[in-house]
Structure formats: structure tokens, C-alpha cells
């Protein structure tokens, strides 16, 4: 069984991360009735005896659970968020060696995060990462969580990403990046996002972009259904059963992202008839190295309180996964081109249900000519808390292009007027060329997606086969 380490950077990263750890504990508590530290728990937690001075690596499975410590590194250049975590119910899950904080913040400036703090804290960051890695028997993957709009998450977060590539080249790097919406109140967020995008394109194995606006829409949709219609604690936004009590403003949205990560890793942690490990995600969903932006959707978002015909509800779950309203970015994958698609099913779903739905939905989805049957499927037997089954769909689809184009346009608008540029150029090590390079990286990414889009709908003839002389 492999282990993964979560690195949460910046305010957004840490708040989402906090929800992730809460829900992860809830999920394992639900499944693990005997209180024994098992392989599934070890993928994200160490079992530590806090009475012993060094605690030990805490990887021995089969023992009783004593004190669980998250395999995480928390980084923030302000103290507020991390302090709140340390005073909250999750304080036992982290120890002080996993934290890195400063006081003054990055001022929403990518250059400050990436260059100033990146250099100042380089040694300490590498040290903490290495320690977390050494506590793992078999480290498979790093999950980086951060936002793209601010200074710490975008700047220092992407610096951490390149450090991960340098120091741990064998481990997979999966990034959950929260993109700012157009109405974002941080004026310089386009600069921060585009500068960060270049880093993600070059150093990440997979990126799962998430847009705040989509999360807001989903939360609203669920709240509309609430009351007598939905079973309590089954909504993807709910924290019921977790450690934290009253819910804070962004909690509902952050729970969605936390659930995304839990479902992504479910097949690696729990058993099933068709396992799907984390390293299989990159191999199957990334046909060309730079095109690694995956659109995700989670269904069902809630369980209805009354009893429905099981099969209809199951098929509805598959249909929903491809609908616009369930995607975590504002995009419509059905009207763009699919390069590849992964379906991770949890719970009491059999292979025939999966095959039936793929055959049913396939004609409605445009796939690129060389990957007409581009499906990667996984079946995990353990459902998430409160549901009998769930589906996570990850699509490598050209519908990410509009998001990137919009980002580029907002960037250009500012850049043309050289607005706020001096804040960045004042930072030691920051050159104007960083801006132009980042822009050109984004442009060529958009161009690659455009070229693939151009093939959509066209009848591409089969490439002539090798001819054998008889």
C-alpha cells in the first residue's frame, strides 16, 4: 500500500486542506470499526505513540490506533489560518514540525511568494517535506492544494511544486488549484494566476482546476433541495459526523474539493473488483505531457430522502456526471472534445452497470479521433459516508480552454496598461521577462487545445496500416 503526502499552501490551501483532513477522519472512522490501524489509514495517516519522545515513524499496521498524525505539510505566510487549525479540533492531527508560517503574508503578490519567501524558506520547506517522505514506507504521490489568485498559494505554492520535482522526482505530483472567478476582489489575481499556470504546466503531473463560481453554484443547488427532501449528512457539502462543529462560511465549498480528493484516492486505499491506483491516473489521462488539466465532476451531490428505484437513480448518476452543472469548473464538456475520461465508481455498483452506462452515454460525447474508446474505469467497493454509491469523473477535455482564454484576457487587460507591475518588478529576482514567458506559455497551451478542437466533428480517416507482403 502506498502513502501520499498533502502539501497545503496559503489561506485557501489550508482551509480546503483542513476540510479534507476532517472528512478523511470521518470516512475512516465509518469504515474502520475495529480501531485497528490498517493499510487504508496508513495512506494518509501515521499511527504515533505520543508518549514516546520521537513517536516513531508510525507505519506498523495491525496495531490499535493510538494517535493519528496526518501526512501533511502546512505552509502559510500569515499565521491566522494555521493558528485557527491548531486551536480547533484537528490540532492533534498535526505536530509542530509539519508547519511553516510567517507573519506578514505575501500581499497578493506572486513574486513575493515565489521568489522572496521561496528563497528564504527553501531549506526549511525541503526539510519538512523530506521528513514527511521519510515517514512513508512507499511514497507514491504528493497532493498540492492552493489557490491561483493570491500571493502565497500561487507564488510559494508553485515554488514548492518545483522543489517537489527536484527533490522527489519519482513521486507523482497532483495539484488541486482553485482558480479565481471573474469577480474576484483581488485586483492582481490575473497576474498571479498566469504566472502560476506556467509553473503548473511545466512541473505538475496532473492539475485538477476548480473554480469558486462553480462551487458556489453547486452549494446553492444543494441548499435549494434541502429541508425534507435530502437525507441529512449525505450532501457533498456536509461536515456532519466530522470533528468540527459549527460550519464556517467557505466550509460547504471546501467540502466539495475535499470530497474530490477523497474519491480520487478511494481505490488506492480500499479494495474493489477493478482497482485504480493514483499512478494510473496520469498514465491514462495525460496523452501529451503539457495537456494535464483534468475537469472533475462529483455525483451524486446528495441522496434523496425517499426511496427511489435503484437502477434509475444509478443511471441518473452517470448522466449527471457529464452535465454542465456538476463540473467543478464552469465548462460544458459535452460540447467540447474529450481526449480521455476516467470514471471512478464507489459502492455497490457492478461492472455491468458501468458498461451499460458507458455504452449509453458514449454516442452523446465527442471523443478525439484516435481515442474513440478513451475510458478508464475503476470500481471500489467502499462507498463514501452517507451514500450507497458515488461517481467521480475526471475528463481531459478541451473545455478547459475557455477558462484559460478568459484568464489570459484578464491578464492582458492589466498588462497592457502596466497596472500594478511595479509591485512585482520591485521584488528581488523578478524580471519583466517572467511575465512575457508566462503569457507565451499560456498562449501555446491554448493553441494546443485549439488544434485538437479543430479536429472535432471532422471525419478523420484511419491511418493506413502497415502492409505485409504475402
Amino acid at each position, binding site marked *: 500500500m*502506498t502513502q501520499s503526502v498533502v502539501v497545503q499552501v496559503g489561506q485557501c490551501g489550508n482551509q480546503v486542506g483542513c476540510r479534507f483532513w476532517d472528512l478523511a477522519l470521518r470516512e475512516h472512522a465509518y469504515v474502520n470499526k475495529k480501531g485497528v490501524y490498517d493499510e487504508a489509514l496508513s495512506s494518509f495517516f501515521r499511527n504515533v505513540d505520543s508518549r514516546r519522545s520521537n513517536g516513531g515513524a508510525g507505519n506498523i499496521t495491525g496495531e490499535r490506533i493510538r494517535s493519528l498524525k496526518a501526512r501533511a505539510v502546512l505552509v502559510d505566510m500569515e499565521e491566522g489560518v494555521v493558528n485557527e487549525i491548531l486551536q480547533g479540533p484537528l490540532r492533534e492531527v498535526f505536530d509542530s514540525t509539519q508547519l511553516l508560517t510567517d507573519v506578514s503574508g505575501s500581499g497578493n503578490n506572486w513574486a513575493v511568494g515565489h521568489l522572496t519567501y521561496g528563497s528564504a524558506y527553501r531549506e526549511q520547506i525541503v526539510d519538512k517535506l523530506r521528513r514527511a517522505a521519510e515517514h512513508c514506507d512507499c511514497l507514491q504521490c504528493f497532493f498540492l492544494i492552493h489557490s491561483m489568485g493570491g500571493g502565497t498559494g500561487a507564488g510559494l505554492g508553485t515554488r514548492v511544486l518545483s522543489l517537489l520535482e527536484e527533490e522527489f522526482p519519482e513521486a507523482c505530483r497532483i495539484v488541486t488549484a482553485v482558480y479565481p472567478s471573474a469577480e474576484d476582489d483581488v485586483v492582481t489575481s490575473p497576474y498571479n494566476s498566469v504566472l502560476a499556470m506556467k509553473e503548473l504546466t511545466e512541473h505538475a503531473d496532473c492539475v485538477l482546476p476548480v473554480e469558486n463560481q462553480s462551487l458556489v453554484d453547486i452549494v446553492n443547488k444543494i441548499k435549494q433541495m434541502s429541508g425534507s427532501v435530502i437525507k441529512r449528512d449525505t450532501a457533498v457539502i456536509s461536515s456532519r459526523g466530522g470533528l468540527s462543529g459549527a460550519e464556517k462560511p467557505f466550509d460547504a465549498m471546501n467540502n466539495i474539493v475535499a470530497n474530490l480528493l477523497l474519491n480520487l484516492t478511494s481505490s488506492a486505499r480500499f479494495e474493489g473488483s477493478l*482497482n485504480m491506483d493514483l499512478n494510473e491516473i496520469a498514465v491514462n489521462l495525460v496523452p501529451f505531457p503539457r495537456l494535464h488539466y483534468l475537469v472533475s465532476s462529483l455525483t451524486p451531490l446528495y441522496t434523496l430522502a425517499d426511496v427511489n428505484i435503484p437502477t434509475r437513480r444509478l443511471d441518473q448518476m452517470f448522466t449527471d456526471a457529464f452535465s454542465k452543472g456538476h463540473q467543478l469548473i464552469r465548462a460544458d464538456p459535452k460540447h467540447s472534445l474529450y481526449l480521455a475520461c476516467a470514471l471512478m465508481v464507489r459502492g455497490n455498483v*457492478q461492472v455491468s452497470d458501468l458498461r451499460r452506462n458507458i455504452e449509453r452515454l458514449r454516442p452523446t460525447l465527442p471523443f478525439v479521433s484516435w481515442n474513440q474508446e478513451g475510458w478508464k474505469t475503476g470500481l471500489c467497493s467502499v462507498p463514501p459516508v452517507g451514500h450507497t454509491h458515488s461517481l467521480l469523473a475526471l475528463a481531459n477535455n478541451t473545455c478547459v480552454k475557455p477558462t484559460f482564454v478568459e484568464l489570459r484576457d484578464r491578464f492582458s487587460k492589466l498588462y497592457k496598461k502596466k497596472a500594478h507591475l511595479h509591485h512585482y518588478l520591485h521584488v528581488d529576482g523578478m524580471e519583466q521577462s517572467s511575465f512575457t514567458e508566462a503569457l507565451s506559455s499560456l498562449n501555446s497551451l491554448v493553441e494546443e487545445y485549439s488544434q485538437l478542437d479543430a479536429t472535432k466533428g471532422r471525419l478523420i480517416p484511419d491511418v493506413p496500416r502497415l502492409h505485409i507482403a504475402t
Partner: protein
Amino acid sequence: MSIVTVQLGQCGNQVGQELFDVLSNDAHDGQRKVYSKSCIERFFHETSSGDYEARAVLIDMEPKVITQSVFKAAQSERWKYGDHSHFSQKQGSGNNWANGYCVHGPRHQEIVEELVRGEVERCDRLAGIVAMMSVAGGTGSGVGTYVTQSLRDTYPNSFIVNHLTWPYSTGEVIVQNYNSVLTLSHLYRLSDAILVHENDTVHQICARLMNIKHISFSDVNKVIAHQLGSVLQPALTGHSHGDFSRNPLGELLSSLVCHPEYKLLTLCSIPQIASSSMAYSTFSWPGMLKHLRQMLIANAKMEEGIDWQVKAPPVMPGGGFSTRSQRGPGFNTSLANLLILRGKDVYKTEIGEFQDPSIYTEWLKPTEALSTWKSPISFNKYEKCATVVSNSQALLGPLDRMVGKAWNMFASRAYIHQYTKFGISEEDFLDSFTSLEQITSSYKQL
């Protein structure tokens, strides 16, 4: 003589466990002393404490599946896997053939050889090795190919048969066609015979014949286990002179694989019914054999929906062979067939229809092209059961489509960087494509 089974990857281990279940249940069914003894000697090792341990080695690059299989075996209380017969790592092969073949295979070669040697040495005499794997993933396909290669080097005179499970053609793993092409091209040079089950076909059998509403992989694997069991269980062959054959794999190969260019084997089995319907069904040999023959020539894998329009061309005056042009499209020409009949009244069966020269190519006389094995013992609770193992054009369509899809993907170089980073070059891909086009072309010419 004993057979050692090597189970590779998730599919290999899941199917293997179902296979041993079928074999064990069949061996313990009723009072059939000689048959049971022969079956047990072939597949199980009796320990000093009276346990039956499967003669199997379980290999996977991650631990969950092997743990499940070992657990399920122990639950049967009739047989189990040996405590030291398995090997797993912590991190899988990531659906990447190159990762399996270039990294995991060599890294663990010694320990795998050690485990297999242990099983082989526990056999009085080795009848051969059966390696079970899928072609879609990374471990079964990649590590499986490497292990087959190492087995071939270590046991150059033993029979090695690979059992492959092909994935759903609508897609289970996106790079499944690359993994399949690479596996088949390599195995063709290493293996003595390649026995194939397709998920699509077995799924249809479950859906239409066995009336299973929500088909799980367990259901699929049970059907595969039944069909494989009907081939591998003891039978009386032409050469065994009244005893159960002591060289099943050797005789299988000499019946079916007369030319190294033609190694792909498929299975058709009749009947396949839900166990709940068994008590109400009666079977007659003539009816079953008639259906089975039509299944063979029309390339249908089950009794329902057979195309009875596909006919063998009429026998020429003088009894000559028909040519390829006389057989219509949709006609599955065989190179050789092995008919295995088990159950009541098996000595009263008429198999003449299977010796009809018009269903074979001209190279072998029909009496050489058809071999028959019989066993009066009923298999797996079926009163009568007939299976034909066929070296024919049955896989031509699926193979051709698989190569076509892989070639299209290769033309755009999609996913190639995932393979080259582990040491498989574009030239290696081209070599594999060339081999498979050659194999496809050979079968087309039958």
C-alpha cells in the same frame, strides 16, 4: 503429472482463484476416486496436515488483490494457497506495460523464479506451466510478459501456455490497445499457445444465458473458470490408452498448434446455464454437438443468437476440400479443433460433423485436424458438457480492431511519452505492430 499456474496482476489472480475453486469443487464431488485423485495430483499439493494447496504462484505489484484471493481461497475450506506462494509490492504498474516489463519485471525476476521453482520442485513430474493474466493493465501484461520470458529461459523444454483475458472493446483502460499489442507481439515468440477469453463475449454469456441482472467481475470470472476447467480437468485422450492423460498440455499443443505462426486459441462451451435452471434442463448429445458446431463455424460464443445462415459449402463430389472463396463471409475457418466431451453416455456420441473437411483449411487431413478427448465423469455439476478448443479465425476480428485502434493512437503519438520514459522506444512499438500485422495476415489466409 502436474500443472503449475502463475497468476499475474489483478485479473490473473481473480480468475485464478475462481479456477481453483471450480477444480477443487469438481474433484470433491461425489465418489469418483480415480478422477479425483488425478485432478488433485494435477492441481493441488497435499500437505502433511491434510490441506490441499493449489500449485500456484501469485504475483502482483500491489497487495490488495492477492490478499483478497488468499482470503477467499481459505474461506472455501477445501483448498488454500500456500503461505509462501505469493509475491507483491506496494505500488502497482500504473497500467503501463513499459513500467511492468522494463522496471518491475527485471527488479523482481529472482524472487519470482524462486517461487516458481519451489512449486515446480513439489511436482513429481511437470506437465507444464499455465500463466494467467490480462492484456489491458500494466502488471498482468508487462510483468506477465517478462515472467513468461524468464520462464521460457529457465524451463526451455517445458510447455508454457498463456491464458489471456482481453478487455471490453468499449474501453476499460485507455492505453489498453498499446498494452495488448506489446504483450501479444512478445508472447507470440515465447509462449507455446495463447488461450484467449474476451470480456465482451463472457459478459454476453452472463447476460443472455445465465440471466444475471447485475453482472459482476466475479460472475464473469466464474464462467471463464468453468470453461478453462472443462479443458484442464483429466480426460481420456487418443494417446492415453484407457487412463486419464498424463500429458494434457503437451497433447493440447500437438493437437492444435501445428505451426508456430498459428498460436491463438479460443474456447466454445455448451451448455452454459444458470445453476438454478440446471435441475429443469435436459441435454442430448446430438443437439449439443449440432449447436456447438454451428457456434464454431459462425463464430458465436453461445447457444443463443447463432447465425444458422452461415453454412459450410457443400461437399465436392469426390470429397475434396472447399477453397476459401467458397466459404462465405462470416465463416470461421479452423486450422485445428479439439473437442472435449464430458458426462453421461459420452461413448455414444457422434462427432462426424466435426470432421467435415469443409470447415478446415486444406493443410491437414480432417482426421488430423480434429482431436477428441472424452471423460465419462460429469464436470462441474453439468450432466453433459462439450467444449471445443479451436485454432481458428475466431479472434481475427477483435485482433484486427485492436491493432487498428492502437495504430491510430500511435499515429498521433498520444501517450507515447509515458512508455518512452521507462525504456520502450518508438521502434519497439513499430516492431510489435509489424508482428501483429503478420499474425493477422496469416490468419486471414486460412
